[in-house]
């Protein structure tokens, strides 16, 4: 059954060594009143062949992104995941090791995390990165906790153009932090810096997203400035895959840059596991959440890597810790490292340029009105003549999933379709999208 391997002979020897006559004796420490008497009511055991067949049958019931031509993005994107990422994910040593508490046993994981931290710092223009957070939503909550201690203020400001799930998670955590949450509405798809400035007074942190959830490019430097002038931590939620062509948050003065790493090296996987990245300016390093790897030397003077600044962490600081996180998303972050190393500076720039070019081509070819005037990176919103959900349903009958219905999250946007492209999309794909939309919207 399962993966057990003790033989009867083993059991007998072991019970003898313990000095009990049966395994049950070992459980006598469990008060009779709370012992579970019956058999677990769970589905029957399956051998590996039957198990795979069962799972294949379940998987076959899903319509995955290869099964139709899909332009759905809205936070999770099908950028190309290179085969070198498989090398990392399939190496048993990376896969089956845990947090590198014992550096001599884990130099590989530690060095890779150190390299990952460097890549994140380079992309975001920040000084320090942690080893990963859970995803693009929880890192925002982490940032609130940092801001709470740094500023001693009790308000967080969220641009309405910030990913709705990120806003929801911040709202879930806010009561525990004693935070009030203020949202700043979008104006024609983007956030007005003056409006944000007004809202930022007495705020601990101010969040915006670049490019934003509606696909629009914000005037990020102005938004960061508004937050900074109010003495709040300016937090940019960014897309790693855009940072070959879009300015680094560090360059326009953000205090913290974070986001969802999935686009860089992880599969959609129905929402996870992925990695959230979290990078900050050096003054906040001792308030950072999660694991951080540092370089040092060993007893023989050799370079080596260790988990460091652990006095921030729960296992040492306990109730005073900067976060309660222990298990994180290292493996997914390492797939990100492999992917970004495979792209290199040239490749990442080219991905960005291809996204810009395809988005522009989409704007030209799709026979619908763009919903907003602002420029975009890889997502663009259009107004649909009939409710967007109907347009999507009818387009899918033609084998094309044209995008995401923004009405799911934004009132008054029931007729707005958000179309996402990545470098995997071809000109022909977009022509096909255009002609299908032509047909179903005519």
């Amino acid at each position, binding site marked *: 059954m399962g993966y057990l391997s003790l033989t009867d002979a*083993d059991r007998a020897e072991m019970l003898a060594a313990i000095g009990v006559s049966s395994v049950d004796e070992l459980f006598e420490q469990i008060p009779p009143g709370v012992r579970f008497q019956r058999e677990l009511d769970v589905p029957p055991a399956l051998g590996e062949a039957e198990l795979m067949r069962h799972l294949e049958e379940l998987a*076959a019931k899903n319509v995955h992104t290869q099964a139709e031509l899909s332009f759905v993005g809205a936070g999770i994107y099908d950028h190309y995941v290179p085969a070198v990422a498989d090398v990392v994910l399939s190496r048993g040593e990376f896969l089956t090791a845990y947090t590198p508490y014992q550096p001599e046993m884990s130099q590989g994981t530690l060095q890779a995390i150190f390299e990952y931290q460097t890549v994140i710092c380079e992309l975001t223009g920040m000084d320090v990165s942690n080893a990963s957070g859970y995803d693009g939503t929880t890192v925002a909550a982490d940032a609130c906790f940092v801001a709470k201690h740094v500023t001693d203020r009790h308000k967080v400001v969220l641009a309405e153009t910030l990913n709705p799930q990120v806003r929801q998670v911040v709202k879930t955590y806010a009561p525990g932090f004693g935070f009030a949450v203020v949202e700043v509405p979008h104006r024609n798809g983007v956030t007005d810096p003056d409006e944000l400035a007004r809202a930022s007074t007495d705020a601990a942190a101010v969040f915006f997203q670049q490019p934003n959830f509606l696909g629009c490019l914000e005037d990020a430097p102005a938004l960061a400035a508004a937050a900074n002038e109010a003495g709040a931590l300016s937090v940019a939620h960014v897309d790693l895959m855009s940072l070959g062509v879009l300015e680094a948050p560090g360059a326009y003065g953000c205090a913290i840059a974070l986001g969802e790493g999935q686009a860089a090296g992880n599969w959609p996987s129905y929402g996870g596991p992925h990695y959230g990245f979290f990078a900050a300016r050096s003054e906040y390093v001792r308030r950072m959440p999660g694991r951080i790897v540092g370089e040092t030397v060993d007893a023989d003077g050799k370079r080596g890597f260790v988990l460091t*600044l652990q006095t921030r962490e729960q296992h040492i600081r306990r109730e005073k810790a900067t976060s309660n996180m222990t*298990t994180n998303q290292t493996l997914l972050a390492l797939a990100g490292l492999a992917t970004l190393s495979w792209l290199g500076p040239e490749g990442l*720039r080219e*991905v960005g340029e291809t996204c810009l070019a395809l988005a522009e081509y989409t704007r030209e070819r799709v026979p619908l009105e763009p919903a907003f005037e602002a420029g975009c990176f890889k997502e663009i919103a259009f107004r649909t003549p009939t409710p967007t959900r109907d347009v999507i349903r009818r387009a899918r009958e033609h084998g094309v999933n044209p995008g995401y219905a923004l009405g799911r999250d934004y009132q008054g946007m029931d007729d707005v379709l958000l179309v996402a492209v990545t470098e995997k999309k071809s000109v022909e794909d977009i022509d096909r999208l255009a002609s299908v939309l032509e047909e179903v919207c005519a």
Partner: protein
Amino acid sequence: MSAEPGSTWKETPLIFERSRPGRRAGRPPRPDLPVPDLPDSLRRSRAPRLPELAESEIVRHFTALADRTFGVDTGFYPLGSCTMKHNPRVHERAAALPGFRDLHPHTEDEDAQGALELMWHLQGILAEVAGLPAVTLQPAAGSQGELTGLMLMRAYFADRGEDRDTIITADTAHGTNPASVTMAGYSLEKVGTDTRGNLDLDDLRGKVNARTAGLMLTNPSTLGLFDEGIEQVARIFHDAGALLYYDGANLNAVVGLSRPGDMGFDIVHYNLHKTFSQPHGGGGPGGGPVAVRDTIEPFLPAPTVVRNGDTFRLNHDRPKSIGRVRGFAGPFGVFVRSYAYMRAYGPALREMSEVAVLNANYLLARLRDAYDLPYDRHCMHEFVLSARNLKREYGITALDVAKRLMDYGIHPPTVYFPLVVPEALMIEPTETEPKERLDDFVDAMHAIAREAAETPELLKEAPHGRPVRRLDEVRAAKQPILRYLFDEHPAVVA
């Protein structure tokens, strides 16, 4: 290039040190289209210094790093409290099925029926294992499960108009418990452990009152001992109108043998990466579902997976919900693996826990003469020894023992935790280890105890067979180098 030819551990430069300007691996598609301009203020001003390598060198780099990493695949990994069991390879094959791996999380429910059905079954098995009716799969790990549980308490009491501000934890508690208490906005109260390793009931009675929101407890405790007074403990809290939270990190000891819900716990988190074998990935990913009583169900995060007849859907319409704690419905890839692990056992999940406990007690029985045993009882799935005897007699610490174990090809146990035990060695073999590996460990631990007496310096200088030895953690914290600094990077030392 090897520093000293002949040494088996080759130097592994940082990937940035392997880079050469102009090298590249990936070549993204470049459609024949004009690239629109960006306003200067938004355009990247300085190219990120990403690695520049040929693909062959990228593969070699990560291959070399993997060789410097010890996993369960490499050998025995009895890291207490982390349940480092075998990770079946079929899990990786299953999670990579296009129907799972390439499924977009915004997919309409009717097109994700296979995924939803899997999650629904997973909820059901988890509920049966905990003895509690309602489950959320959303939390990303145990720690987030804890925080979610505390948020649920807050919502529950708010809904009842009760104002309670204190959470009680054991002095043996894992650091995440107090940390979660703070993040949830509660204040913390600690209770002690009695001489048998159970919660000190007298201490407890004095601390539970109308301000008490609840208890957070690991059972079996981090000492690997089942709390023999758990029924009284539950009564004390429930009589005070407070709730009990079960930290499921040690669930591997009691699946099918004792259910948290039956013990009196109202809220439970699971660590899917521990009990249900999601590979730990050098630190993660994990999964931290939470189960609760009916009375608390209304407050669970949205969405949850519900079934109507033969169809399944995500229910976002949960008016009393605390809200969402993570993106989407949780780490689906983790669910695939844990569900597969559960299905490989079926009702024999009980045997899984029995063997985990048998393996631990076998090690305990064979090691008790060589090391100090702070609580002399049968253990559950893990146990804590103390090296204080070696320290007293030979100045050998738990850390020295840990480092020397590496030379025997074994990953050290958890050390210096729980805090209540000096020189603690926290040992968890798990159910998937065959007896030979347990015997290897016993032999190594005995050999080390002998070495402590005969050749203590051998231990002080251990490990001798790893790429590095005794890293300077103080220096790392005092002069932090947290990223590669390119031209300004300090020269590689030695």
